């Protein structure tokens, strides 16, 4: 019998969580439907004028995406925490900061990636001009990994707290602000036909920084919660 490589463990954890998620499709689907409905509310509340809608579309879509990403977060580690799987994750020979990235990746695949895929529909609903479409998709692609990473921190820290979902929002929303600012600015610029490389680069940098550092905080949070 041989020892497993870290990569194999990572892939195994990813596959197992995807399998479990497949048994509970509504968990992944509900935030997306929520996003779609929130976005639908704005034309109804503001009026269907394409000028105003296109003007506020980046902000609406991103704010709605931030809120939607908060919805499923509480369950990210909670089930594993309650049935003891999280303890076993701590007791794997691989560092916890490494293994939790598998869970973060699952979260992104189930909440971040669908947002990117859904973005053309959202852009269409809010009459975002053509140039805005791809910029929106790109900002979502670059920004959502950071959302998953920050979200994992919030979820790990509030594991021991009963009914922690409102607390998670409280903790995370201030940390989401830079993403919101740069992403909406990029989409706005793109809609006006301006260059967006700068904003996208900053967005990518924030994502890279968050995704590399967040696992440390997540691991510390899980260790603390399992204690």
């Amino acid at each position: 019998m041989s020892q497993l490589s870290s990569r194999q463990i990572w892939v195994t954890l990813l596959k197992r969580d995807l399998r479990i998620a497949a048994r509970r499709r509504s968990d992944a689907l509900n935030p997306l439907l929520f996003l779609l409905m929130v976005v639908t509310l704005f034309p109804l509340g503001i009026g269907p004028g394409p000028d105003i809608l296109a003007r506020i579309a980046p902000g609406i879509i991103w704010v709605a995406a931030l809120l939607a990403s908060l919805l499923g977060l509480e369950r990210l580690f909670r089930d594993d925490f309650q049935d003891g799987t999280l303890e076993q994750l701590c007791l794997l020979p691989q560092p916890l900061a490494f293994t939790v990235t598998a869970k973060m990746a699952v979260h992104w695949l189930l909440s971040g990636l669908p947002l990117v895929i859904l973005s053309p529909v959202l852009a269409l609903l809010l009459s975002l001009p053509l140039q805005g479409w791809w910029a929106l998709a790109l900002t979502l692609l670059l920004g959502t990994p950071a959302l998953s990473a920050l979200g994992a921190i919030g979820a790990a820290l509030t594991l021991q707290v009963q009914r922690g979902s409102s607390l998670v929002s409280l903790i995370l929303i201030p940390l989401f602000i830079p993403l919101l600012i740069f992403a909406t600015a990029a989409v706005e610029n793109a809609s006006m036909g301006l260059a967006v490389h700068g904003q996208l680069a900053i967005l990518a940098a924030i994502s890279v920084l968050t995704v590399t550092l967040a696992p440390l905080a997540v691991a510390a949070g899980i260790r603390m919660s399992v204690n």
Partner: protein
Amino acid sequence: MTQVASTNSPLLHAEQLSSIRGGRVLFENLNFSVSAGQLWQVSGPNGAGKSSLLRILTGLLAPSNGLVSFYGKPLSHNWSEYCEQLLFIGHKAAVKGELSARENFHWQQQLSSTEDIDAWELLEKLGLLGLEDELTARLSAGQQRRVALTRLWATQASLWILDEPFTALDVQGIALLQQRFVEHIQNGGTIIFTSHQSLTLSDLTPEKLSLEYQGEIL
């Protein structure tokens, strides 16, 4: 069975171990050594700190005072080797309700790289045949426990730390588990388990560690 080259230091050594939880002293100044090949039974009434002691030994819980060492070194110093040697089943059994018994076992095999073990044979042995595709959440408590205990057959770990492994099991289950204990000890493995009832294990006499309930409130 992989074994760390034995040195003079015992497998596990607890030194001056104290645990204070929620302002209450569970135990204080606990000293003991566990050598490879031993079977240890930790007993004591409810609230005496059995589970806390086991979790401290696994390194999941930090002791309020004292030190646990593994072959003479503190746990955190060779954490990854320790984890390779360790199998822990807590009272939360880490069985996924959304997965079937077979799937649970399959992922366990994947994570412990013991794919050469025949799943069907083991499921039959544990009386789970016919239930293997049922979601574990729908099984009875005893059956779920059996699913959790499949891990004892799919592991390369030599040190087993088991929290109340016999609860919810029927007579047959207990016999199976005892038989597995004997096998593991005879192969040179080590087992530390808790049980609030005293248990007669055929062929084996466990070392006993009794925890008293201490009402001391800080």
